[in-house]
């Protein structure tokens, strides 16, 4: 099943995948153990003439054992997830590139600060759906929406963040491989929800410079 994960190209993506693997192996093991036990019981204790069932009401020691074992396993899993969660959603590393992405039915409106590095000035550059970023740089995305809730999803980056009208939410990523990736909207946003599709174009440093030079307005 793990082979179906899209190729990962972000710095934190591999850590998410690692967690995914760990939980996958744990749950698969549990599933097979439980199923095996069940099938074994079903075969061994099937109705047979002259073999009565046991009059047995349970065992408190066993109850305590499996309760505390599950509890400990789950708490470990939760606590282990915490640093990664904080890293992705709470404490982004300092930004090297900042862009604004605003959801609207049914496009992503992308705003670059322009040469002066500040939003809301004359030299901002705006385009629909195409997010150009350099490879190996920390990119902050200031996410917003002008109408309904959208969700900024880049499968290859393992990144998903809702864009909520009335809020500006910071998402971040650092791509490790140049290329072109799709940015579907992952939260139902109306009849055009399917097909609301942006594109993340990740450039090598030189290409990025070139793109900036060609497309951004001059100072």
């Amino acid at each position, binding site marked *: 099943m793990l082979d179906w994960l899209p190729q990962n190209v972000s710095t934190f993506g591999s850590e998410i995948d690692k967690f995914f693997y760990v939980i996958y192996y744990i749950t698969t093991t549990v599933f097979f153990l439980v199923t095996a036990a069940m099938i074994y019981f079903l075969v061994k204790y099937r109705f047979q003439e002259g073999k009565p069932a*046991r*009059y*047995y*009401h349970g*065992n408190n*020691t066993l109850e305590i054992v499996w309760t505390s074992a599950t509890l400990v396993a789950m708490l470990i899993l939760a606590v282990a997830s915490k640093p990664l969660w904080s890293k992705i959603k709470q404490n982004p590393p300092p930004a090297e590139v900042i862009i604004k992405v605003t959801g609207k039915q049914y496009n992503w409106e992308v705003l670059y600060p322009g040469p002066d590095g500040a939003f809301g000035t004359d030299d901002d550059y705006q385009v629909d759906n195409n997010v150009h970023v350099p490879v190996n740089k920390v990119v902050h995305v200031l996410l917003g929406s002008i109408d309904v809730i959208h969700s900024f999803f880049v499968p290859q980056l393992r990144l998903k963040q809702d864009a909520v009208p009335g809020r500006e939410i910071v998402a971040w990523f650092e791509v490790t491989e140049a290329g072109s990736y799709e940015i579907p909207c992952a939260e139902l946003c109306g009849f055009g929800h399917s097909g609301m599709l942006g594109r993340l174009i990740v450039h090598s440093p030189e290409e990025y410079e070139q793109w900036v030079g060609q497309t951004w307005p001059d100072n």
Partner: protein
Amino acid sequence: MSDVFTEERANTLVQDYGGTPPPIGAGPSDPGNGGRQDSSGKSHANAILAMALFLGADVMFFAGLIGAFVVFRFGALHWPPPGQPLLPLGITGINTGILLISGAFMVKTWQNIDRWPHKKITKALTLTTLLGMTFLLVQGYEWFRLVAFGFKLTSGTFGGTFYTLIGCHALHVMGAVLWLATVTVRLARNRLDQQQRNTSIALIGMYWTLVVALWPILYGLVYWN
């Protein structure tokens, strides 16, 4: 854990899982009439429990609305938002007092239902009803002034939460006053036997207590700044 079945183990099992039926506190057995024309004690207990459960659900309904109000109020930089009126703190304070006194009458009546003479009960309930009506009239007048000032349901989240929250409470008071009035009139006309009287007063008493008890919370949250 041995599954060998010893006599000793059998006896403990029988204690745990069998044996003579212990008495059940709350639930005397059904006398065999489908719970419909039940013996009065049973239907009284059922009615009281059902009312308590209904009030629990009602509290959750208000919790939803109050939750919304709290989110807006404590999430806002300025409250009330600029351009919105200050709510009438003083007159509503007096109104709060009126409602609380009415609640006190109700509780007193409820407590002394087997001690007070019939006339006194009727009188106390009449007073409770009248005080409840006064509360409604005062609040209606206040609303009238607020609307005249331009403060409406559509005045942002302040107007929206104010009118839904206080309005829902007002609807509850209105329903309770109507119910109280009905009970009082039937009491005055001697239309209820003692069991019916006790049940009706207990039910309206519970409902009225909740409605009255909610109000100081709403007053504190919504009116005070």
